[in-house]
């Protein structure tokens, strides 16, 4: 038997092992296209988030423990944010009628105050707006694109991260699910 014939099976086995390894890696890759997104912060304490509210007072997320908190990252020039806004208004109105209604905050990231104020004046919504001028809150949450919405439980633990736009129904359903789960 020639050397080539002797070596060929070993080469084939090595190639098969490499291909099988790549196949396993591909199988393990997350190909989901759900609205919710994975984050290393899921089920972890929410990161420290301090900023300034539109009225000049300070905001500290850790002070909101005891309530469900929904944080929406936003820019006034972002088209999906404009599309999503009516749903947020509807959601906040509905939550305000509940005794255990969630606190809602918009975190403005890389935007100027005049544009944001004009946006809210035109489209409605009177919830607190946090100005994240240095982007530290966005980095702390790992937010690179807007809009993103995060749900934080009364213990200050991150329960969900939702990328792109949300609907009022979706947010309500998710919050009810978390409330029931306790």
């Amino acid at each position: 038997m020639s050397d080539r014939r002797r070596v060929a099976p070993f080469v084939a086995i090595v190639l098969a092992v490499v291909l099988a390894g790549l196949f396993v890696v591909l199988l393990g890759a997350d190909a989901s296209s759900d609205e919710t997104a994975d984050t290393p912060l899921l089920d972890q304490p929410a990161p420290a988030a301090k900023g300034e509210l539109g009225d000049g007072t300070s905001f500290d997320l850790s002070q909101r423990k005891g309530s469900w908190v929904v944080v929406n990252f936003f820019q006034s020039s972002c088209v999906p944010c404009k599309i999503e806004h009516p749903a947020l208004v509807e959601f906040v109105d509905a939550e305000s009628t509940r005794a255990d209604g969630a606190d809602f905050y918009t975190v403005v990231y890389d935007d100027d105050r005049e544009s944001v104020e004009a946006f809210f004046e035109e489209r409605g919504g009177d919830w607190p707006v946090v100005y994240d001028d240095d982007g530290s809150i966005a980095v702390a949450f790992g937010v690179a694109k807007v809009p993103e919405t995060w749900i934080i439980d009364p213990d200050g633990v991150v329960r969900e991260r939702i990328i792109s736009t949300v609907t009022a129904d979706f947010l309500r359903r998710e919050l009810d699910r978390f409330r029931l789960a306790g």
Partner: protein
Amino acid sequence: MERTRRAAGRGRLIGWALLGAVVVALLTVGIVRDRGAESSQDRADDVARRIACPVCDGESVFESRNNSSEAIRAAIDERVNAGTQSDDQIISYIESRFGGQVLLVPRATGIDAVVWAVPAGALAVALAALVLTFRRWSAQPHLAPTDSDRELVASAMEDP
């Protein structure tokens, strides 16, 4: 004849030894050379070069002018200036927020280790194959013409 062959072999060995010494010396200089005192900005820039812009393709946050990259650079600057975290700790912090996909230099643990292991493995296999091939070549007998061979050639040359 034997002496000449031995001298040639010794010469080759010295050549390889010299080449090996030069490679080792260069690697040693490259690894241990003193880069001098590094300013906070240099350090922050080095860290920023190791983190990928989370919203662009193929750019580090050092190069990218994207808002997200600028925010990450600000976070790096803040931590470097505080002086309480090592480069790896700062990178781990960014990774803990944005995930492992922002690491431009993959970690040597977990599935990421494959990118280090595969080239090293391929190099080892290639070197082993070279060694085996050279050994097989050198194991082939050195045939020297016998007297009868010489006579045969001489008679062939004489024949018209």
